[in-house]
């Protein structure tokens, strides 16, 4: 069981990787993913719509962003609990980075360190890729 207090402290990629690596069983990994998804920040009003849907995912995924003083903040959600958890894992570290850092951020290595892709179905993996590509694209605009 993951303690909510603890979760609020997991913010950086290192935190997340460290936390992930303590799981010995697939059940714990999934429990963490499915619970942590509840901590996703709510999407801004009226943004969970078709124009923000990311195509190429097995379940529905919506992704949007805001810009304050040129700093991007990403919001996302899904109708799948597992995907919500994965979105939390993707967004949490980057929402603590500045734009340049996001643009540079190596998602592949990050996922590798989490040992994530290996444990997901390939279509989920492809979905994750679609999301990170969309994020990179937004950063380049």
């Amino acid at each position, binding site marked *: 069981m993951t303690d909510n207090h603890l979760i609020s402290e997991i913010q950086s990629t290192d935190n997340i990787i460290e936390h992930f690596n303590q799981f010995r069983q*697939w*059940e714990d990994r*999934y*429990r963490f993913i*499915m*619970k942590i998804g509840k901590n996703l920040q709510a999407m801004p009003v009226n943004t969970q719509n078709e124009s923000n849907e990311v195509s190429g995912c*097995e*379940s529905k995924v919506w992704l949007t962003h805001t810009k304050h003083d040129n700093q991007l903040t990403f919001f996302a959600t899904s*109708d*799948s*609990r*597992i995907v919500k958890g994965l979105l939390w894992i993707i967004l949490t570290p980057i929402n603590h980075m500045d734009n340049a850092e996001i643009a540079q951020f190596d998602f592949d290595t990050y996922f590798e360190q989490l040992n994530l892709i290996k444990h*997901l*179905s390939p279509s*989920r993996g492809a979905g994750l890729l679609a999301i990170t590509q969309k994020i990179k694209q937004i950063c380049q605009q």
Partner: protein
Amino acid sequence: MKTPAHILDFKAHFPLLINKPDLVYFDNAATTQKPQVMLDAIQHFYQYDYATVHRSTHTLSSDVTHQYEESRKNVAQYIGCDQPSSLIWTKGTTESINLVATILQDSTISSSSNIVISDLEHHANLVPWQQLCQKLNIELRVANTQQFQHKIDAFIEAVDQDTYIVACSHVSNALGITQPIKDVIKLAKKYNALSLIDGAQAVCHLNVDVNALDCDFYVFSAHKMYGPTGLGCLYIKPEQQSRFPPYQFGGEMVKTVNYNNTVFNDLPHKYEAGTPNIEAVIAFGAVIQFLQQQNLTLLQQYESELTRYLYQALKQRSFISLYSPIDSQNIISFTLADWHPHDVSELLNNMNIAVRVGTHCAQPVMQQLQLTNGTIRLSLCAYNTYEDAQLFLRAIDSLEDFI
């Protein structure tokens, strides 16, 4: 509940299930596992007998041709057809249906015609007809079976004297509903319409007798009935055999060729251009022989009991919504309240349970049920055990621990 010994004996023929004792394989409607006798037949074929068929002038090739045609005869007999030339080899159910749609397209359909399908069809028995109708600018009518109560009334409403063909699945792959095909075929005959039955989900679980059914076309895939991939069958009723133009062109389907003109061969060769999937035909012959040695009645009875057992157990769980009928053919389609089907299958997969989730190549069925994310589909076979069922139920009950 304990699995009867004869089922365990049957299961022992399937090496993958023996090699993966922890696997619960409930994806049989997608494709079934294969008995060792089929693998032995393939090995033996390539190691001792291999050559091409027909056009032969050496013994290897003529022996293979003999085996190949014996296999056709056996498969034909297995579905109640005593004229082997009525059985055309194709790639699968999908090609069988496309073949029929192609030869109909090139025959004479008047512009006032319509084509009738049911609202329970797999895309393979829907899109070819839809596209044919669009091309010929004729009407595609979907018999609305009224929440899938499998009533003949829906067909009676749809079929009329302008109906060219009625295409209907024997058993629906998304929900396991058995359609009233005997009555559908009779109805089609009454209006002089052709009838095509998609038996992809039926042949493995029901005794099919095309002669008694009296349909014009019956189609199915070998890989869904313990046979090899890459092989399907198209039964064409003898009376209809000379009526239609050819399908594809090449070797074997011609008699004489010059640059101005080609004379085509007779059935079945007319519809079998090119070197066929000889290996698969030999392998399927071995599977049919294997099935004939089984007590099929007992196997089918067991399949029904196991399906009923799982159905009742799922029905008792308030968080489950069932979309299959109680007399479903080996298929149980359901959803879990507040769960995305893909999340369910991902967790089940980690528990070594293989099910299918989604729209099951039947998007309109799911649209009608307003299930955008589709369902979770269990599909059973005679080698599934009560232990499989219990593992599955325990897994379903454990899901709430994850959230």
